[in-house]
């Protein structure tokens, strides 16, 4: 584990206000989901999950086919598809287009994919103004922070934090009423929508058979982003493609329920192509950027590639007892929570943060709530093995490796195992039956110290089970 990862976890755990904010916000989202996927609310929930998983599995196994079909249909509707292998290619394309069209101002609706490639930073670096229009994302942009949560980017900010940010950045009086804060942001953002040259959105789904993108949102900002400016660019990972429009009957039932505890989000938009003759609104130009950025690297592994099934609902974050303690910013990349813990090592390499797959008690809550049934705990286990293989190759963490060799050896030599147990028990304090809070030097090894830093240890019994059993016979 890196020092930075350790420090961020420590700092988050020590911040009582932050702990409360994370815990209550995730509890609200978690309870909302539970209320809407129960047997009474949605009797076929488990079947929907199975179907969603099957559709995603089929699509990922035939990704080339569906991407080509999607592209053909986008082009047929007058749009253009751009394949990008990484963030540089994305920003190069957008910058090139902006230069050609003389564009200066960009409005953006919420998109984790663009966060993944630091799109705002790249565009701003070249003198373009890029404004987030989702309220949470807008708050994060003002705070110069990355999203704290896949669905609720400003989940950790209280209304007092937001009041301070608005006062400082928008030069408005201190306003702590949430509705009024929303109106303040709305006033600023409406001007941006009207003046923007380009609108950039993400995409929740890319529908192959109709060449359409689907956007799921609650604030209406994605609709404005994609229809007010003359140019609309949607940026999406290649795994977002689904075969048919009718598959949405499965995914839309699952997405909002899992994400925010809503039956459907407030707006679900189907956008295909640019404005055609006779149509009164819509952009003049429509582009879909299909981003790889490491995704194709996951395809050869039968098990781990199910990571690509993710529809970014965030349910695994809300239910995860680890996320609910360490929050989003402790994670080493933009994707946090259980999905981030399996996605990051695969996109960035296991050495990016070798501690990440281990930052889980393997409680399985994530896998249980995943609407597309990604077996997150299993992938975490596979990644742990990958980390250890990489460490062995690089000659790192030799002491731990040795400890597990000794463990395996003792566990296959029952008599020596018993003797080792007896020695350890004789060294430990005890006798009065009370749980122990410290141990003498020979036992005071780092793992024991780590345990005792938080809780007590059981006193050693006078006799092990096998000794008692032997005596009984």
């Amino acid at each position, binding site marked *: 584990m890196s020092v930075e990862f350790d420090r961020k*976890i420590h700092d988050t755990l020590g911040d009582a206000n932050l702990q409360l904010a994370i815990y209550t916000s995730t509890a609200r989202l978690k309870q909302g989901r539970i209320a809407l996927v129960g047997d009474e609310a949605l009797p076929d929930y488990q079947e929907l999950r199975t179907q969603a998983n099957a559709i995603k599995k089929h699509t990922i196994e035939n990704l080339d086919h569906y991407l080509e079909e999607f592209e053909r249909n986008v082009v047929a509707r007058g749009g253009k598809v751009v394949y990008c292998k990484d963030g540089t290619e994305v920003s190069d394309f957008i910058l090139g287009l902006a230069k050609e069209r003389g564009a200066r101002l960009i409005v953006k609706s919420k998109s984790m994919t663009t966060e993944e490639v630091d799109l705002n930073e790249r565009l701003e670096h070249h003198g373009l103004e890029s404004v987030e229009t989702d309220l949470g994302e807008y708050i994060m942009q003002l705070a110069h922070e990355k999203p704290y949560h896949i669905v609720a980017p400003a989940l950790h900010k209280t209304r007092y934090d937001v009041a301070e940010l608005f006062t400082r950045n928008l030069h408005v009086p201190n306003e702590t009423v949430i509705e009024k804060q929303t109106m303040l942001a709305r006033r600023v953002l409406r001007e941006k929508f009207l003046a923007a040259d380009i609108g950039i959105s993400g995409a929740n789904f890319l529908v192959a058979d109709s060449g359409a993108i689907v956007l799921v949102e609650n604030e209406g900002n994605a609709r404005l982003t994609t229809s007010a400016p003359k140019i609309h660019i949607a940026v999406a990972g290649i795994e977002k493609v689904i075969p048919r429009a009718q598959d949405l009957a499965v995914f839309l039932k699952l997405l909002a329920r899992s994400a925010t505890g809503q039956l459907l989000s407030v707006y679900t938009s189907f956008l295909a192509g640019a404005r055609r003759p006779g149509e009164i609104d819509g952009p003049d130009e429509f582009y879909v950027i299909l981003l790889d950025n490491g995704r194709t690297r996951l395809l050869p592994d039968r098990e781990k590639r199910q990571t690509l099934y993710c529809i970014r609902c965030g349910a695994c974050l809300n239910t995860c007892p680890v996320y609910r303690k360490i929050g989003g910013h402790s994670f080493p990349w933009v994707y946090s929570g259980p999905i981030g813990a399996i996605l990051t090592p695969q996109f960035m390499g296991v050495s990016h943060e070798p501690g990440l797959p281990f930052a889980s008690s393997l409680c399985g809550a994530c896998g249980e709530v995943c609407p597309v049934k990604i077996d997150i705990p299993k992938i975490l286990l596979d990644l*742990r093995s990958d980390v250890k293989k990489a460490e062995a190759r690089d000659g790192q963490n030799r002491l731990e490796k040795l400890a597990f060799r000794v463990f*395996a050896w003792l566990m296959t030599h029952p008599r020596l195992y018993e003797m080792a147990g007896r020695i350890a028990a004789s060294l430990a304090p005890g006798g009065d039956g009370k749980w122990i809070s410290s141990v003498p030097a020979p036992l005071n090894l780092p793992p024991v110290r780590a345990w005792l830093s938080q809780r007590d240890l059981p006193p050693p019994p006078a006799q092990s089970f096998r000794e008692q059993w032997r005596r009984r016979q």
Partner: protein
Amino acid sequence: MVDQLFPKVGMAMASVLEQLGYQVDFPENQTCCGQPAFNSGYRDEARTVARHFLKTFENYPRIVVPSGSCTSMIVHHFAELFRKEPQTLDRVHDLEKRVFEFSTFLTEIARVEDVGARLDEVVTFHDGCHSLRELGIRNAPRRLLAHVRGLELREMQPSEECCGFGGTFAVKFAELSGAMARTKLDAILETGASTVVSLDPSCLMQIQGALSRAGKPVRTLHLAEVLASR
């Protein structure tokens, strides 16, 4: 863990099984299922220990385990370890059918819910994550507890949230694990129960360790200890 730290759990389980008329044997060659190595990413070492387990229990018709987590390791993850050894894999699949978590063995094989136990206490039940989510055990222990005379079960909210143990996680991320344990403690203390019951000694070690550190007079018992009470 039961052998070295909680022998009373093993003795209690044996006594419950014997009272039901089962002949109980303890093969002395047994040690561990290998889960600590497996969960830490050391597959070769886990395989070595799993192979030893497989050999030790080859000839037993029924193997009852006082831990949902160990049971899950055997019935769900051994197969992964021996994926590339078809012959061993056959033995693993045969073993899977013979291994039972204690409460499941009672309700599904022995088909009992009332074992004649008595315990005059208010208890709360902690669902171990692997028991609950990997083995799907939810009702069996509650049905068994419902038949214990004098016992009142008060559910904590939520009962299914992790206690933060997680094997080596508890020491690799000690502070985080401790924070999770303290959240669990809040849920336990809110019930007013004097005893926490679970199917997993490792969860109970985490919970009792945290209770003890916090100076709370609540104790922990394995389900087997409750059912052996008279």
